[in-house]
């Protein structure tokens, strides 16, 4: 079990009726590695993340997180995975502290005032801990979602366009935060539409096209322009 890669997808297929979204997708993310998942709208990026997060059932194939099967061992997978979707799971009429207390209690996580305060401080939201989330920017809501992960310490992060809609400063902060997660041995799979943002933290990029992984390559010294050219070569259309 310990030798299993944190994220392993083999021959995955997902169809909604006659519409095939993912077809024979295989992908692996190793410990301490970040993979950026690129693809046109409807290429199946979010579907893949949702299958790995056990929110969708695959039609065929295998998806494993931390060595556990996403179809048959959902409880174990959920214990290891942190999902940051578009909505960030925040209740608008609660404060960050109250939001965190809610999810920590439901999730069986540390919920003492010190633990919650510490998590908010880690994402630099401690100064607005008692303000209503309704007044927050998208970047601040994303940071609040990340505070959950500070408490839960998942070994795998699944991020759905984490850099979309946030400003330069928030993007840099997120880069740093994800870099630290990776350095601690965490595995990260994130979807992105941007060739610049999010890629500095990624070690590899995978391009989804026509339901398949059309390209899976280390980013190494590739510049954003190189990434764009590779993307245009392998994706169905531009982002």
């Amino acid at each position, binding site marked *: 079990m310990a030798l299993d890669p944190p994220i392993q997808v083999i021959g995955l297929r997902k169809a909604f009726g006659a519409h095939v979204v993912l077809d024979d997708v295989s992908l692996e993310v190793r410990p301490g590695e970040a993979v950026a998942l690129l693809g046109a709208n409807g290429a199946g990026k979010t579907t893949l993340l949702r299958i790995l*997060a*056990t*929110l969708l059932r695959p039609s065929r194939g295998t998806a494993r997180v931390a060595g556990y099967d996403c179809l048959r061992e959902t*409880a174990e997978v*959920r*214990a290891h*995975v942190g*999902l940051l*979707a*578009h*909505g*960030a*799971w*925040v*209740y*608008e*009429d*609660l404060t960050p502290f*109250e939001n965190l*207390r*809610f*999810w920590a*209690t*439901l*999730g*069986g996580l540390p919920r003492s005032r010190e633990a919650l305060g510490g998590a908010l401080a880690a994402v630099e939201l401690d100064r607005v801990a008692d303000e*209503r989330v309704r007044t927050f920017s998208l970047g601040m*809501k994303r940071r609040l979602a990340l505070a959950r992960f500070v408490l839960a310490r998942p070994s795998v992060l699944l991020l759905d366009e984490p850099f979309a809609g946030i400003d330069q400063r928030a993007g840099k902060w997120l880069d740093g935060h994800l870099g630290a997660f990776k350095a601690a041995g965490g595995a990260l799979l994130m979807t992105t539409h941007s060739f610049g943002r999010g890629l500095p933290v990624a070690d590899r990029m995978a391009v989804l096209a026509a339901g398949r992984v059309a390209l899976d390559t280390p980013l190494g010294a590739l510049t954003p322009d190189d990434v764009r050219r590779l993307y245009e070569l392998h994706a169905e259309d531009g982002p």
Partner: protein
Amino acid sequence: MIYARRAWIVLWKDFLSERRSKETLNALFFFALLLLFLFQFALGADRERLTAALPGLLWLGFILSGLVGLGRAFLAERENDCWEGLVMMPGDKSAIYLGKVAGNLVLMVLVEAILLVLFAVFFNIDLATHLIRLTAVIGLGTIGFAAVGTLFAAMTAHVRARELLFPVLLLPVQVPVLLGAVKATEAVLRGEPLDTVAHWLGLLAAADAIYLTVGVLTFDAILEA
């Protein structure tokens, strides 16, 4: 203990959100007021007609305002993908259901209390003499309504025509509760002891137990669906 804590945190979250936004309570208050005006116009000053119709009107008010309130029960969960968050939480999800039922119960009891006071004022009825027995009947009826209403609200939360589907699904299932509650309320308002309507109260208690049990057993599957 952990189960109770998880149910409590859901109730606490709903209560806090409602206390701050007051969205549902304000809407329900004005809705209740509007209903009473309509009843007043429909029945006029005929005392005899009013006495005969009162139990039904009272429950019609409770049910209609309850439908509006319960229809919004999972609105906050639909925002910001919080529903997904609940799905991914570990442990027994029925604690979330019971927390939600408790939150809806608190809200409905508040609205019912307001409605009762308004009924007493609008129709010049002395409800105070029947208050304890009336509270028992209304309590039993409301538990059943909240239990199955919360479950159906969750079932229809992601359906496109949920505003239409929710009452269409809920009301037929509520027939035993409505029947028992109206009959028992009628007897209480006539000044009869509760013993005379023990069979209706038994029906209400049984419906409550069945609805709550079904909710506890099926909520996990509904959440994941």
